């Protein structure tokens, strides 16, 4: 099959972020004093467990970031796919007509059909893909438990294989592999988390949402970091009018309630995008640019807090003896900043970045609800919740989309919070360790 790789704007930024992280990693590995706090993180069982969960999320998000377009007799398909889409192809393509409950074999709503005798019968129609191998609903429970057991055993087997090499965290590894094994095994024959209004598999939607959440949480730091670092350190070190100007800028920006500033900026971006439809080759490119803009705007509103912290810390640092010694030796300001100040504020930057991540993931859902989040065509936790919210009033209730979105978000954010706490504790110089 012919295909052409596509690099969307957000993909490029993710690759950039990846390159920066790898460079940072190499740097830290070569310096023992920087490695020390990370060794403390590695000793924490909670941190390692949450890192395991986070890396699974990162794996899904990463696979979903490698995009391509398939060649169709001469030109390329307008549909932008990702490697993850290819791997989860059955989930993506096996769409039902409308809602169906998790592990169901029939649709959620009754429909009128004419039977062999020409009479109109109201019944629950069978699904096209969910549980098609079964002949009657009596077999369903047996089939589900058989598949679940098989999957769990396969997961257990993989866990044993992994544990032969890795000696720690047996419980976490077993839980995760068994869970994944069961889900994968069941998803061959059922919609494990049901289907949504247009019949799309909710499990697939939830997994696709991960990338959006991760991008909002990470790419935003690409904007926050340089602004906050550069301006905060400059304001604290140079004082005088530089300090006044920078303080003025961040006071103005932070005095506008962030939701309103984001709303205003996103509305304006929408107008620009709508009046220039010719800019985008595919609808995915348009949705993607909107996502990048959202990250940009979130970054513009969230750098002020970190900037203030860095300014305060630099104010303290510049009075210390070693900085004054450097100044009296005639070391240039740029060199003092980069060699003496910057390394000594990096722990604040790191702590702020990991702490911000979970807040940004949660903010995405809220912003999408308000109507200033990601493009409605982009799959995200926010759009999932927004779409499912209106179905709350139905009887019996359609709960699975909401439950899936909230649970995935909870796991992601909880893991991120726990990991961030461990990183903060390990890097906080105020904690007394003896």
């Amino acid at each position, binding site marked *: 099959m012919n295909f052409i790789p596509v690099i969307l704007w957000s993909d490029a930024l993710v690759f950039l972020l990846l390159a920066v992280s790898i460079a940072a990693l190499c740097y830290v590995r070569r310096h023992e004093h920087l490695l020390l706090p990370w060794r403390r993180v590695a000793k924490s069982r909670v941190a390692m467990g949450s890192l395991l969960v986070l890396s699974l999320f990162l794996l899904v998000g990463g696979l979903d970031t490698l995009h391509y377009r398939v060649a169709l007799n001469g030109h390329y398909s307008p549909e932008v796919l990702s490697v993850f889409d290819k791997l989860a192809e059955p989930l993506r393509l096996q769409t039902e007509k409308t809602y169906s409950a998790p592990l169901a074999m029939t649709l959620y709503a009754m429909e009128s059909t004419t039977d062999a005798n020409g009479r109109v019968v109201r019944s629950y129609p069978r699904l096209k893909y969910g549980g098609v191998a079964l002949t009657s609903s009596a077999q369903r429970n047996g089939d589900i438990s058989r598949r679940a057991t098989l999957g769990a055993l396969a997961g257990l087997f993989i866990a044993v294989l992994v544990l032969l090499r890795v000696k720690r965290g047996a419980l976490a590894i077993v839980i995760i592999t068994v869970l994944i094994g069961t889900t994968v095994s069941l998803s061959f024959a059922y919609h494990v988390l049901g289907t949504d209004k247009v019949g799309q598999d909710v499990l697939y939607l939830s997994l696709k949402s991960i990338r959006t959440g991760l991008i909002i949480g990470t790419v935003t730091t690409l904007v926050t970091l340089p602004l906050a670092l550069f301006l905060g350190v400059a304001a604290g070190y140079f004082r005088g009018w530089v300090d006044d100007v920078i303080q003025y800028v961040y006071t103005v920006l932070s*005095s*506008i309630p962030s939701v309103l500033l984001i709303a205003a900026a996103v509305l304006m971006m929408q107008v620009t995008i709508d*009046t220039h439809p010719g800019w985008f080759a595919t609808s995915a490119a348009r949705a993607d640019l909107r996502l990048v803009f959202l990250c940009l705007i979130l970054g513009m509103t969230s750098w002020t807090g970190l900037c203030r912290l860095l300014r305060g810390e630099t104010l303290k640092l510049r009075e210390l003896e070693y900085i004054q010694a450097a100044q009296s030796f005639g070391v240039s300001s740029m060199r003092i900043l980069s060699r003496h100040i910057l390394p000594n504020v990096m722990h604040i930057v790191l702590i702020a970045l990991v702490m911000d991540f979970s807040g940004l993931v949660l903010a995405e859902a809220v912003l999408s609800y308000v109507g200033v989040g990601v493009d409605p065509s982009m799959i995200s936790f926010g759009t999932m919740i927004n779409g499912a919210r209106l179905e709350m009033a139905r009887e019996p209730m359609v709960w699975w989309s909401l439950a899936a979105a909230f649970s995935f978000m*909870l796991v992601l954010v909880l893991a991120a919070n726990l990991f961030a706490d461990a990183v903060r504790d390990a890097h906080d110089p105020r904690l007394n360790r003896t």
Partner: protein
Amino acid sequence: MYCASARTPAACKITPPYNIRMIAYLIRRLLYALPILIGVNLLTFALFFVVNTPDDMARMQLGVKRVTPEAIVLWKQQHGYDKPLMINHAAAGAKQFTNTIFWQKSASMFVLDFGYSDDGRNISREIVTRMGPSLSIALPTFLAGLVIYVSFALLMTLFRATALDIAGVTLCVMLMSISGLFYIIGGQFLIGKLWHLVPVSGYGGGGFKFVVLPVVIGIIGGIGSSSRWYRAIFLEEIGRDYVRTARAKGLSELQVLFIHVLKNAMIPILTGVVVVIPLLFMGSLLTESFFGIPGLGSYTIDAINAQDFSVVRAMVFLGSLLYIAGLILTDISYTLVDPRVRLS
């Protein structure tokens, strides 16, 4: 006390009485707020009128495709956007500056004249009528929340490093990892639909049964992050020397906590709390829109969905105005609780 640190005896004599210094301090703070408001005003003006021209806005409102130039001109005329942005070369004298979009749409907000929304209503009047419902939800949430969060944090501090504290912190981390939308949707479903205790949504003139659910959900939604924050503040205070002194003179742990620690933690607590008090007028976007409360929060959401830029602009300005008022209030509250803070 102030004299002791002054360099010369002369500086002592000219120190004016407290209330005069307070007034001078207030005036200085207010003057300091003015440039920030001007900055906000210029920023919103740039965002709403320079990034996209009024023509773009008109096209957006009238539907992007198949818009005649006449319709755009008419729309701009009806909404008062048919003027130059900053300087009107056609006019003479002061009119060069006053007969412009900047003057009439942006600068006018300084005298709280927010103009008219796209459906022709007076935004200022709308704001005044909608503040009440917003406050009736936000104020109880704020006050009850503050008491509950601080008590919970004090409880965790009292039992610090025990199983109870660890359980409390774990609970907090769990609660703060859950999306705010979940609390609202889950609460509406459980209490409103399943148990039929109170109406799912509506305002009904501010009756108790309409207000109680959003307030309770608002409090629960904030427990995780707020209690953890207060706990961190209390733990930081409890490691200080004055606490050791208090214990050494034989005070019980409860006395230490409630009399000494709580009092000394006032400054960090006030920093986070006082600044949001004026913003309570704005209400909460999510709560109000889910519960159908006719406050400023739902007004903003409706404006965002209808792409009514004049209302969004007004809200941005009002929000920052209230935030700056909060900052000034915070500074005043410092001088009230901490005698070490000087009015200079």
